[in-house]
């Protein structure tokens, strides 16, 4: 075949596409293996509890503080817009709905991806680079069952809890700014909120979203760590990829889930 510019460009394109698809397939098989070998992580639950500490508990501060500030900003901005139409009592609805439906799950997931996801990738990547995973394999212990699965499940469990804390904190922030600072009527702030926020439709759908996001982030994080080049550049590259890929995946998944859940409601 004559290797002129066009064929070479097409070849390059083709190789990139097949590489991506191959990697996606590999990642899917890796997820299957993780779920299949989860017996150890669930039976010896203290392994998973340890990882919940590192992913969940250590993310608490950033989640709570960001939640509070996001809620306070929502309170300020929401009030500014709503009072132009003379309906500032609807501030509670605005703050609560935007938090439980969207901002809570999505922003908490983005923070989680950069706080915990990157840490998971770096940790597993370093274990690979220093041959700890190989050593484990040589000791007849499957690293997927012993190292990957507990971290995966810890992420899946932590994420919804963090998202709910983010929403609760945000609503509290909105309350602080709206009611305590600006002086929106406290009664109508809460009662309007309660009248419009549905437990199943709004809150539970938000929780389901955060579950899905937790699974996506944990999956990407453990995969990038396990698959990275066992060198310093490999680990740092994988860590960056975890944050970028999972952030994009969260936003895409959020669009799909929102379209499925809140269509017509």
């Amino acid at each position, binding site marked *: 075949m004559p290797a002129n510019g066009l064929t070479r460009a097409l070849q390059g394109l083709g190789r990139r596409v097949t590489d991506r698809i191959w990697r996606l397939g590999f990642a899917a098989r890796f997820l299957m293996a993780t779920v299949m070998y989860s017996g150890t992580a669930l039976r010896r639950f203290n392994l998973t509890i340890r990882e919940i500490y590192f992913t969940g508990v250590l993310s608490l501060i950033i989640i709570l503080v960001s939640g509070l500030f996001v809620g306070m900003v929502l309170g300020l901005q929401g009030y500014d817009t709503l009072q132009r139409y003379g309906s500032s009592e609807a501030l509670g609805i605005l703050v609560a709905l935007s938090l439980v439906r969207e901002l809570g799950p999505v922003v908490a997931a983005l923070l989680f991806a950069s706080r915990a996801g990157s840490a998971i990738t770096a940790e597993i990547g*370093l274990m690979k680079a*220093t041959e*700890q995973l*190989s*050593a484990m*394999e*040589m*000791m*007849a*212990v499957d690293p997927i069952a012993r190292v990957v699965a507990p971290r995966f499940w810890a992420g899946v469990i932590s994420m919804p809890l963090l998202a709910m804390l983010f929403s609760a904190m945000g609503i509290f922030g909105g309350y602080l700014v709206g009611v305590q600072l600006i002086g929106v009527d406290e009664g109508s702030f809460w009662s309007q909120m309660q009248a419009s926020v549905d437990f199943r439709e709004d809150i539970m759908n938000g929780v389901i979203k955060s579950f899905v996001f937790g699974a996506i982030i944990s999956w990407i994080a453990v995969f990038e760590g396990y698959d990275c080049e066992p060198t310093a550049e490999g680990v740092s590259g994988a860590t960056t990829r975890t944050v970028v890929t999972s952030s994009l995946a969260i936003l895409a998944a959020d669009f799909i889930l929102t379209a499925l859940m809140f269509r017509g409601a």
Partner: protein
Amino acid sequence: MSSEPLVKLTDVNFTYDRRPVLQGINMEIPRGKVVAIMGLSGCGKTTTLRLIGGQLKATSGEVKVNGQVVNDLDNDGLYALRRRMGMLFQFGALFTDMSVYDNVAFQMREHTDLPNELIHDLVMMKLHAVGLRGAQKLMPSELSGGMARRVALARAIALDPLLILYDEPFAGLDPISLSVVGKLIRTLNDALGISSVVVTHDIQESLKIVDYVYFVSEGKIVAQGTADEIKDSAEPYVHQFIWGEADGPVSFHYPARSFGEQIYKEAARAR
């Protein structure tokens, strides 16, 4: 049974990404002996070790460990076999999130239901064997290179294996740690009645402790013999290796066309 070698490689080929890494390797590791595989970096020594441990599968040929063909084992069989092997990685590969004690206890906790008191006694025995009983509470980051290597050795013998594989056990050690580790390899081998495979390029240290040496170059075995035979070897490659000469069969220059030709061509292009 005992006359048969513990590890036997027959006509083993290994190809990675269409690049032949090993070609027609024949090797025997007798029981109770310390065997060294030597060669330059990237010659396929570590690959041989990984074939024995079953982390890689031979492209063709047969790797037999303790009567079992490693290439034919399924995952469970391989894991069962690996419980009878210990491996010491290049830089120890200690689990950085666990203390020295937990590192050594790791396999006992994973593979046995022994009560905690018994595990404690066993860990103390293993740590005592490498002289680090006092370091049990330290974390791997607090250990020197030589100590980390010794802890990793204690971990490798945790379940009393038949065979220990050493991947560059001398790399990056100071002279004292080097001879401590060398001595430990020999004494553990004899005291526990195990067999050892040492992959290394540290010729002086390993010749003091090994029984038999294989020289690997470019994926082939180029020389073999007992430690004394190797010292007196007339083989130019072995000679260069032992005496560390800069030039010889292993050329100083990376393959390239002749220097004069290259200068002439580049000068022509610049014009």
